[in-house]
C-alpha cells in the first residue's frame, strides 16, 4: 500500500461524496416531485430549480466511475460485473431521467411519460446507491480471482436495504431543502414541511443504521471508532443533523448546507469503515480487494494525480460560477422548462 494508493482511495471517495452531495439533492427532489408538485406551475418550478445543474451534478458519477476504473481497475471490474443487474437497473433509470427534462419541455402530449421517467429515474437510483454502498460495507462473496460469486439476491440483504432507505431519505432531505431555497408560496410551504419531516426521518434512520452496523457488521463499527478520522466524520454527521434540525431558524440556504453535510459525513464514514479495503470479501477477509492488490501502477496514479490537480480547480470554478448565476428563487417566464 503506497501513499499514492491511499491518495486515490481518498480522491475516489471525494468524487463519490461530491456526487452524493450534488446529484443527491436533485435525485431526492425528483423522488419528491409527484408528492410536492401539485400543478403544472409547481412542476415547472421543481424542474427549473435543478434544470441548469442536474447534468453537471451527474458528471460527478461519471468522473468517479472513470477514476475508480483508472485507479483501481480490479474494483471497477468486480463491482460493475458483480452487481450487473442492479447496476443495469440504475443505468436504465438514469437514461430515462437524462432525457426527461428536454422531452417533457417540448412534447406536451407525452408529458405523462416523461413525468414518470423523471420520478422513477430519480427514485430508483436514490434507493439503489445506498443498497450498493451497504453491500460494500457489509462485504460481498469473492473468489481467489477477485470475482463476485453471489447473485442479484445476495445484494438484497437487510443491512443493505437499511442503508438504501437511509440514502433515499437523506437525498429527499437534501432535495426538500433545495426546493425550499428555490420556491415560493404553497410549494415553498410544502418544501419546508417535507424538509423538517425528512430531517427527523434521517435522524431515526441514522440511529437504526448505527444499531444494525454494530450488530451485523462489527468490523465497520470498530474501524470507525478506532481513529480520529472516523470520529471526525461522526462529529460532522452530528453537526449536520443538529444544524439541520435546530439551528437554521428559517434560513433556507443554511438548511440546504446542513443537509449537504450529511452525504459528506456518510461517504466519509463509509470509506473509513472499509479502509484499506475497497471491496471487503465477506467469506474470507484475505480475499478482499484492497489498495495494495487493486491499485494501478505508480506511474498511472501519478499521471492521474496531475490530471486531478489541473482538473479539480477548474471544476470547482465552474460550480461556483453556475450556482452563482442561478442563485435565488426560480422565476417562471425566465428561460427554461
Amino acid at each position: 500500500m503506497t501513499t499514492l494508493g491511499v491518495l486515490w482511495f481518498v480522491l475516489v471517495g471525494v468524487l463519490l461524496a461530491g456526487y452524493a452531495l450534488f446529484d443527491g439533492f436533485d435525485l431526492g427532489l425528483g423522488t419528491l416531485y409527484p408528492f410536492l408538485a401539485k400543478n403544472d406551475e409547481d412542476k415547472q418550478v421543481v424542474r427549473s430549480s435543478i434544470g441548469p445543474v442536474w447534468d453537471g451534478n451527474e458528471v460527478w458519477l461519471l468522473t468517479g466511475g472513470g477514476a475508480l476504473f483508472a485507479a483501481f481497475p480490479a474494483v471497477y471490474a468486480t463491482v460493475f460485473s458483480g452487481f450487473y443487474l442492479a447496476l443495469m437497473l440504475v443505468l436504465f433509470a438514469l437514461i430515462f431521467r437524462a432525457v426527461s427534462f428536454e422531452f417533457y419541455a417540448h412534447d406536451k402530449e407525452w408529458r405523462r411519460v416523461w413525468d414518470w421517467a423523471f420520478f422513477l429515474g430519480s427514485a430508483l437510483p436514490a434507493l439503489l446507491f445506498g443498497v450498493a454502498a451497504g453491500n460494500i460495507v457489509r462485504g460481498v462473496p469473492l473468489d481467489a480471482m477477485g470475482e463476485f460469486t453471489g447473485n442479484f439476491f445476495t445484494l438484497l440483504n437487510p443491512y443493505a436495504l437499511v442503508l438504501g432507505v437511509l440514502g433515499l431519505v437523506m437525498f429527499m432531505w437534501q432535495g426538500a431543502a433545495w426546493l425550499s431555497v428555490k420556491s415560493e408560496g404553497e410549494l415553498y410551504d410544502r418544501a419546508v414541511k417535507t424538509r423538517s419531516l425528512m430531517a427527523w426521518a434521517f435522524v431515526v434512520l441514522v440511529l437504526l443504521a448505527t444499531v444494525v452496523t454494530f450488530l451485523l457488521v462489527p468490523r465497520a463499527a470498530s474501524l470507525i471508532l478506532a481513529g480520529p478520522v472516523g470520529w471526525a466524520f461522526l462529529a460532522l454527521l452530528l453537526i449536520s443533523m443538529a444544524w439541520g434540525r435546530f439551528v437554521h431558524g428559517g434560513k433556507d440556504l443554511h438548511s440546504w448546507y446542513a443537509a449537504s453535510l450529511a452525504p459528506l459525513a456518510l461517504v466519509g464514514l463509509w470509506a473509513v469503515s472499509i479502509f484499506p479495503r475497497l471491496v471487503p470479501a465477506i467469506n474470507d477477509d484475505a480475499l478482499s480487494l484492497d489498495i495494495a492488490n487493486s491499485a494501478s501502477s505508480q506511474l498511472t496514479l501519478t499521471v492521474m494525480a496531475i490530471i486531478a490537480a489541473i482538473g479539480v480547480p477548474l471544476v470547482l470554478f465552474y460550480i461556483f460560477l453556475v450556482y452563482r448565476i442561478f442563485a435565488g428563487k426560480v422565476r417562471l417566464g425566465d428561460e427554461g422548462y
Partner: protein
Amino acid sequence: MDAVVLAKLQFAFTVAYHFLFVPLSIGVGLVVVLFERRFYKSGKPEDQAASELWIKIFAATFAIGVATGITMEFAFGTNWATYSRFVGDIFGAPLAAEGLFAFFLESTFLGVLLFGRGKVSKKFYYVSTWLVWLGSMLSALWIIIANSWMQTPAGYKVVETAIGPKAEMTNFFAAALNPSTMPRYLHTVNSLLITGGFVAAAIGAYYLRKGIFKDFGRTAISIGLTIAAIFSVLMIGSGHYQAVAVVDNQPTKLAAMEGHWDKGPVPIGVVGWVDVANKRTISIEIPGVTSFLASGSFKTPYPGLNDFKAEDLPPIQITYQTYHLMILIFGALLLVSVGGWLLNRKGKIEKTPWMLTLLMWMWVLPELGIQVGWATAEVGRQPWIVYPPAPAFDPAMGLRTADAISKVVPAWQILTTLSIFVLIYALLFVGWVRVVSGLIKKGPVLPADKDNKAVPAAAKA
C-alpha cells in the same frame, strides 16, 4: 447464443446508437456557435430566435447523447470486466479526464445556454456556446485516445498478476498519443462536422421547400453548406492520414478492407465482393493505388489475408463492404456539399427544388457513413480487443475479444439487458423524433412572442 456473441451484440448496438447522436450534437454544436455569433454581432431579435431554435434542437439531442453515453461508461465494467482488469492502468485515465476536462465544461455552460439568456451578458452567453462546443470536442478527444489505444496500443508493458495479465503504463505520452490517436481524432471530428453542416442545410432546405421561415432557411443553408463543403474537402486529407495509420499498424485490417489475399501491391476497389470460401475478391478496382497512397509507390507489397492464421483475421466481408460503402458515401458528400455550395453562392439554390429536396435527406448519408466507418474500424480490429502493436505483433501484448468479457455475467442476463436496451432506445428514438420535429415545425420564435424579461441582478441571493 453464447455470452461473447451477446456481449459483442450489446456493445455494438448501444455504441452504434450512441454514435447516431454524437455527430448531431458535436456537429450541430458548431452550428449553434455560428448562429449565436450572428446574434452577438447584429443584436436583431430574429437572429436571437434563430439561435434559440438551434440551442433547443441541440439540447434535446445532447440529452439523448448523455443518456446513451452513460451506458458506454458502465459497459466496460459490466460486460467487459476481464478487459477492464487488463487495460485499466491505461484505459481508465482518459475516461476520468473526459469527465474532469470535458463533461463538467459542457454541462455547466449548457445550463447557461438553456437558462441563462436573461441572467448573463450577451458576451458571456456567446462565449458559453463556444465552451459547450469545445467541451464536446474535448470529450471526443479523450474517447478517441482511449479507443485508439485499443487499435494501436503503445507506451506499456504486459505484467503477470495474481488475477491474470495486465497492461501497465510505461510512458503516458506514448500511450495517449499512440500512432493512431491524431489521425483517428481528425478523421472522426471531421466526419461529425460534415454531419452538422448537412443537418443545418437540411432544416434550411425544408423551410425553403415549404416556403416558411425563409430568412432562417437561407442562413441555415449557407452556414450548413459552407461547413459541409469545407470539412468534406479537408476529409480528403484526414481520411488519407487515417488510412496510412491502418496500413502501418493493422495489416490484417488493411487486408480485409481491400479483400487483399496474396502478398503484393494493394489496389483500391470501387465496389466488389469477397468470395471468402474460394479466397478471392471480385471487384472493380484500380491496381496499386492503395500501395501508392500509403507509400508513394504503386509497387510496394503488403501482406495478404493468406499470410495470416485464420484465427487472427477479422470478419472479412463486413470489413470490406463497410469500408467501401464509407468511401462511396464520401464521394457523394463531397459532390453535393461543394456543388450545393457553388449553387448557393450563385444564388440559384432556391430555384433548384430538386437540390432542396436532396438536401432535406442528405444528412442521413454522413450518419450512415460514420456508422459503416466505425464498423470498419471496430470489426476490422477483430479478433482483438487490444490489437498487438506493430512491428512485432506479439499476441501476448494484445488481448482477444473472446477473452475479455465478464466471466460472472451469464448469457441470459446479457440477453435480458440487451432486449431492454432495444426497447428503451426505440422509445427514446420516437421521443426524440417527436421533440425535434415539433421544434422544427414550430420554427424560430421571436423573443417578443414570449415572456422573456431579463431578471435583474438583485434577484441573486
